[in-house]
């Protein structure tokens, strides 16, 4: 883990001329060029419909970009190839947590290991003791190990988001994407969740990209802030540089 953290500084995600036009003609991303370093904590700000979600989903190809390239760990992620290898390396958490509500917490966290099940495991994955150890370990790191055998829909919002983070951690990823992870949580729980993301970013050296609505949270947690407006990258800089003028530029 510490060796990863020491790599901090090398570019890990290279985005070149990335554009996405949806079939209804909406141009969600317009020629984005950005480079994200290993171990960085990047916050993306912008109003609704600015292209934040589309950008983050292009990185793990939940959205197929129309043109442009994304290079992750020196490999082109926007070409062909097996998406399984890309996606198990790029974990993601969501605004609505997206837990499988009728399964137990542990079973949900084990979903993080699906990307490692090749061959027969693609038809019926068997989770071995190593997977279960990893899952329990992630749950313990997030302080919810005692909830392992409770059904996921019986947890509170903050706890569900922690389970989702545990699921992401169980993938042993090098990049963590968070699509508005605190938009459906109250302010206090939001801080708990962002503290966790920051801690994981710090301890494991996992590059973290977070979509945020709250400017003050972005300024507090991020190493770098990207501002999107109408599908274009209109601001890129350190959190200290986010002034009133930048705020006007991104949100008006």
């Amino acid at each position, binding site marked *: 883990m510490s060796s990863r953290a020491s790599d901090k500084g090398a570019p890990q995600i290279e985005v070149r001329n990335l554009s996405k036009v949806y079939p209804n003609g909406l141009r969600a991303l317009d020629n984005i060029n950005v480079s994200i370093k290993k171990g960085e904590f990047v916050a993306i700000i912008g109003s609704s419909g600015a292209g934040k979600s589309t950008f983050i989903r292009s990185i793990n190809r939940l959205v197929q970009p129309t043109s442009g390239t994304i290079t992750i760990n020196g490999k082109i992620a926007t070409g062909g190839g097996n998406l399984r290898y890309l996606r198990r390396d790029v974990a993601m958490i969501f605004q609505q947590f997206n837990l499988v509500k009728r399964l137990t917490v542990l079973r949900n966290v084990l979903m993080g290991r699906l990307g490692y099940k090749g061959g027969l495991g*693609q038809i019926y994955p068997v989770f071995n003791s190593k997977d279960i150890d990893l899952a329990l370990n992630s749950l313990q790191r997030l302080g919810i190990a005692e909830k392992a055998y409770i059904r996921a829909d019986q947890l509170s919002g903050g706890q569900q988001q922690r389970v989702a983070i545990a699921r992401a951690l169980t993938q042993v990823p090098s990049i963590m994407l968070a699509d508005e992870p605190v938009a459906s949580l109250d302010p206090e729980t939001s801080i708990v969740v962002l503290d966790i993301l920051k801690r994981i970013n710090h301890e494991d050296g996992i590059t973290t990209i977070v979509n945020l609505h709250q400017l003050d949270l972005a300024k507090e947690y991020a190493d770098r802030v990207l501002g999107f407006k109408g599908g274009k990258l209109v601001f890129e800089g350190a959190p200290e540089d986010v002034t009133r003028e930048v705020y006007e530029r991104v949100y008006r």
Partner: protein
Amino acid sequence: MKEYTDKDEPVSPDMAKLESRKLETPEAFDPPMPTIPAYDPPVGTWSALRHRLREAGKPRYHNPITAAFLQIIPGLGYVYLWRWANAFLTAFLFLLAYLVLGLRILQYKPEIKELKATPVQPNPEPDLWNWGLLEPASLVILWAILGLLIVNLGIRTYQRAKLDNLNLQVKSLSEIRKAQGTFLQRLLSFNYVAVVVIILGILQVAKDSEFDLGRLLDKMDNIRKYVGELIKPNWDALFTEKGIMFRARETVEISIIGTLAGAVVALLISFLAARNLMGRNPITNVAYYIVRIILSIQRSIPTLFLAIVFVVSVGVGPFPAVLALTIFSAGLMTKLFSEAIEAIDWGQVEAITAAGGGPIHVVLFAVVPQVLPYYISHMLYSWEVNIHSASVLGLVGAGGIGQYVQDAINTYKYSDIGMALLVVIIITMGIDFTSAYIRAKIL
């Protein structure tokens, strides 16, 4: 920056930090108006074509008088106004009106009527439907009404065109309201075509299906006699050999086996019939459409017809009923199951995909847990429907209580039919209540 030293340090919010944060929120936040990006149409695609059609359909200046005169051929004026839906609807309604009138003219044979007028008919049935609509005078009136309707359509189109032109230069709401005309003007331009066509259509349909309350009253004695026998059930018929209880048990068993077999088939097919799972790539999309076409063909075959086919091919008894019910309930359940799949929370599918799961993983871990309770509920519902069908299928020789009723009708034992009916009602109600109770518990 906060320091993270202890890995297992419990995470809890720092209240002091929370308090300070509240002061930092930006003052006077005006929610930004969403900006609609300028549309940049792609070239040489379907969406480009759609875009060009949409552009062409945008309001532009229309000459109201031209529009009104073009409506002499109903619908053409609307084409001129680029109102395609209105054009097709109007053309369709007028076509129906001409068709109904045309049929009436074809039915009108005055010379034959005159010939048969005097002695020949021994038992003349009173023709309730001869309201003189076929007399030449009525026909003239009907065609005159149709002519007036075309004039009315013209007036309507004239006003529509004027409104369209008004919308070109964006005016105030009150001006637009004023342009819609007075009450009298609006009354004149009401869509009378639809009303006339619907009235004519209902008259024709009622005539064709021999709807006749007089006949019902005439046969009242018959009805009283048979119903009187039915409501005196013959309790002795219950436990005879191949009697009502034997057949009732057979009915329940047919419905159980038919439902289970149908559920197995539906379980496999329902994934292919779910648009949200299959519509994502061209190959599976083709499979989706093939399955959907087969399903719609299957749904249009009546179960009784299936039962007849199987009775003829595999012989009399409960087995053909099981086969017919299997096919019927497989179709029903596939539709219900696939709708359950289409209603799932797509976020869970996305989460499994984002974790690197393959298509089968998605089905196993994101779809099945969400749809399982619905599957059980739909299976119970299908069982309810099947028990109704299974009681009828015996009428064509496919076992069950229907078989008993068929035999009883042939030997005029109406009291036995009454008993069978009572048993069917009790069994069906029992199963309906049980299944409703279980379904309420599951969901």
